[in-house]
């Protein structure tokens, strides 16, 4: 093999940097969705690589459901500060108070309420291009989405009418009120993410690593016991050595029993895994087309 050769992580990285710069160059008011999760950590690293030594020319945006893991929010705020990046947080709670988001009576999950909260934030700041950390290997509907995913003025995705995406020529043109969601990590797998985190020595929130936690068995999963999710009578409760593989809201994120406490341990664990990453996310299991429906409504 010649010395003019990029390995798979280098190839994915250069593709991601190229996309980051296209966004900065083609949009007037771009933003980057940053939750503090492992995918958006890689995204932020790509942004550094794309724009340094300049400042990252776009603000970070996060929709806080109020049901986040506290460790995640702490990490999010600290990381943004370290990078000197502007962080905008909009909360579901505020959106509900303003009547922008209306809860379904009796529904505890804030998952659905993220969508109007996000759309309101986009409108407030007139964002036209939003970079997100979604990957195609996560889910079947995402597997069909383009790098540059056009959304109409209601934020909706039309999977049957996507723009052809050819070579590395991304059509970023939109009319006023429309938006583009951009996914530089589209071609990355869960394994690539962890290998990149290892290679770049990126810090991740501690909940990705093995720790002790009181969990309750519900719908075949171990969910963290919190004030939001007290165990019901007759439910099995146990203190377990667990970690998160993918982070959703604290009331719907299944904890996996794992001794992995380093990036290398996690890589070894994924290599041997027999279920997918999103197998531990209750929000995706509600139906075969759960993600497709949410995306059509404006979700990432």
């Amino acid at each position, binding site marked *: 093999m*010649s010395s*003019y*050769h*990029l*390995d*798979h992580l280098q*190839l994915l*990285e*250069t*593709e991601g*940097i*190229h996309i980051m*710069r*296209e966004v900065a*160059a083609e949009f007037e008011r771009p933003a980057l969705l940053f939750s503090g999760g492992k995918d958006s950590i890689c995204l932020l690293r790509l942004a550094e*690589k*794309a*724009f*340094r*030594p*300049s*400042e990252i020319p776009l603000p970070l945006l996060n929709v806080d459901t109020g049901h986040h893991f506290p460790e995640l929010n702490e990490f999010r705020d600290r990381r943004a500060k370290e990078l000197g990046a502007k962080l905008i947080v909009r909360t579901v709670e505020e959106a509900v108070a303003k009547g922008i988001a209306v809860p379904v009576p009796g529904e505890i999950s804030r998952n659905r309420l993220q969508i109007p909260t996000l759309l309101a934030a986009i409108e407030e700041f007139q964002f036209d291009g939003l970079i997100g950390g979604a990957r*195609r*290997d996560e*889910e*079947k*509907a995402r*597997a*069909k989405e383009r790098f540059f995913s056009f959304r109409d003025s209601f934020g909706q995705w039309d*999977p*049957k009418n*996507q*723009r*052809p*995406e*050819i*070579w*590395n*020529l991304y*059509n970023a*043109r*939109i*009319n006023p009120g429309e938006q583009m969601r951009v996914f530089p990590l*589209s*071609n990355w*797998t869960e*394994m690539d993410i962890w*290998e990149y985190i*290892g290679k770049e020595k990126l810090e991740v929130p501690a909940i990705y690593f093995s720790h002790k936690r009181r969990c309750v068995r519900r719908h075949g999963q171990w969910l963290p016991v919190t004030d939001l999710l007290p165990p019901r009578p007759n439910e099995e409760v146990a203190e377990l050595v667990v970690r998160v593989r993918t982070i959703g809201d604290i009331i719907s994120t299944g904890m996996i029993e794992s001794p992995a406490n380093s990036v*290398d341990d996690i*890589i*070894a664990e994924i*290599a041997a895994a*027999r*279920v*997918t990453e999103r*197998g531990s996310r209750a929000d995706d299991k509600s139906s*075969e*087309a759960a993600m*497709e429906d949410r995306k059509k409504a404006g979700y990432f």
Partner: protein
Amino acid sequence: MSHAQHPVEILRFNTCGSVDDGKSTLIGRLLYDSKSLMEDQIEALERSADITGGGRINLANLTDGLRAEREQGITIDVAYRYFATPKRKFIVADTPGHVQYTRNMVTGASTANLSIVLADARQGVIEQTRRHIYIGALLGIPHLVIAVNKMDLVNWDKERFLEIRDEIEDFLPKLDVFRDVKFMPISALEGDNVVFASKNTPWFEGPTLLAHLETVHIASDWNLDAFRFPVQWVNRPNRPNDVNFHDFRGLSGQIAGGIVQKNQEVVVLPLGIKTTIKDIWTCDGSLTEAFCPQSVTICLAHDIDVSRGDMIVGARNLPGYSANLRAQVCWMQTRPLQANKKYLLKQTTQTVQAAVTSLESRINFDSFEPEPAPPQLGINDIGIIHLRTAKPIVFDGYKTNRLTGSFILIESGTNATAGAGMLLPPLEPAKPEYSDFAI
């Protein structure tokens, strides 16, 4: 390093064929038999088998991710799949076969190293087969596999397989681009010759499809001959008090061809100014040398006004520079392409106005012969057109460099991506008036 044993080479391939040729089933079979599926995916398959499949697992459900696709049993859009074997990592684009969705085939195939074209053993070579092979050739995909599927439905008849092979081999010389072409008798549904060699084809020496995907030599697709650097983003930090960066003026972009070295002489086009490379800056430190497709930030020895859309090239092997372009175009929109229509043309990092001056020819997919002077190109038509751009562009022929020789046409108003273009070689190289830079 704990992950040293992981595969490092990526093969990108796409599958195409007509409706019901079994593309999604084939990918499902590859994933299933190569043990790339997880338990929850298999469970989901089994759940849908009970509901819609009459109890039998439908491997196509793995890639047909949209509700309408599962209901109608068709594939609507390009679906991407990722799997790895101990030998390689794979990015798979499953591209639909409906005639109206040819644009998605172009989307899925434009970045592929290898294309798998499926043919139904009962139906043989149909227009779709020819069209897909042609598009693969047009896009310059080096490797082609013709998978003759549903061989179980023709009783594994060797003669039928050879008949199909001969028919395709008859027209391949007209296309003259593929580096290698393999024919394979398979049954995606039953799994024969996909991952495991079939007992039904003693007359086929192999290899199986997966073995071929794992071993086919993918010499670099990237052009390492002539240096091309389309400026993507001007990197000018606002750090007046930082001695390292107060006068930093970087040009960020992805190298689209060739190799560049520190202190090398380069030309900035279209300005035509010669200068040298002062620094190849990256976030991880400066490089003495960089190559396609690395993303870097270049600093020039002179403070020249360079912006997005300009191109920095090596002093030898200059690209073309013209406002009059001739290109092969694949049309992807229902509103036809006609002479005098205007579009936005995006090539490398610039977008310019372009007018169609004339239509030279349209490909006839039965004969592969060009029909001269068609009145228009309709959706899925491929032909040669002439364009005039509002300002000249710097370019190479597509066969020389896929990244500097390609463009898309965008319709104003809807902003739809209406066509994919592959430039024919320039008639002559750029002739900059070498104003050697002097202060």
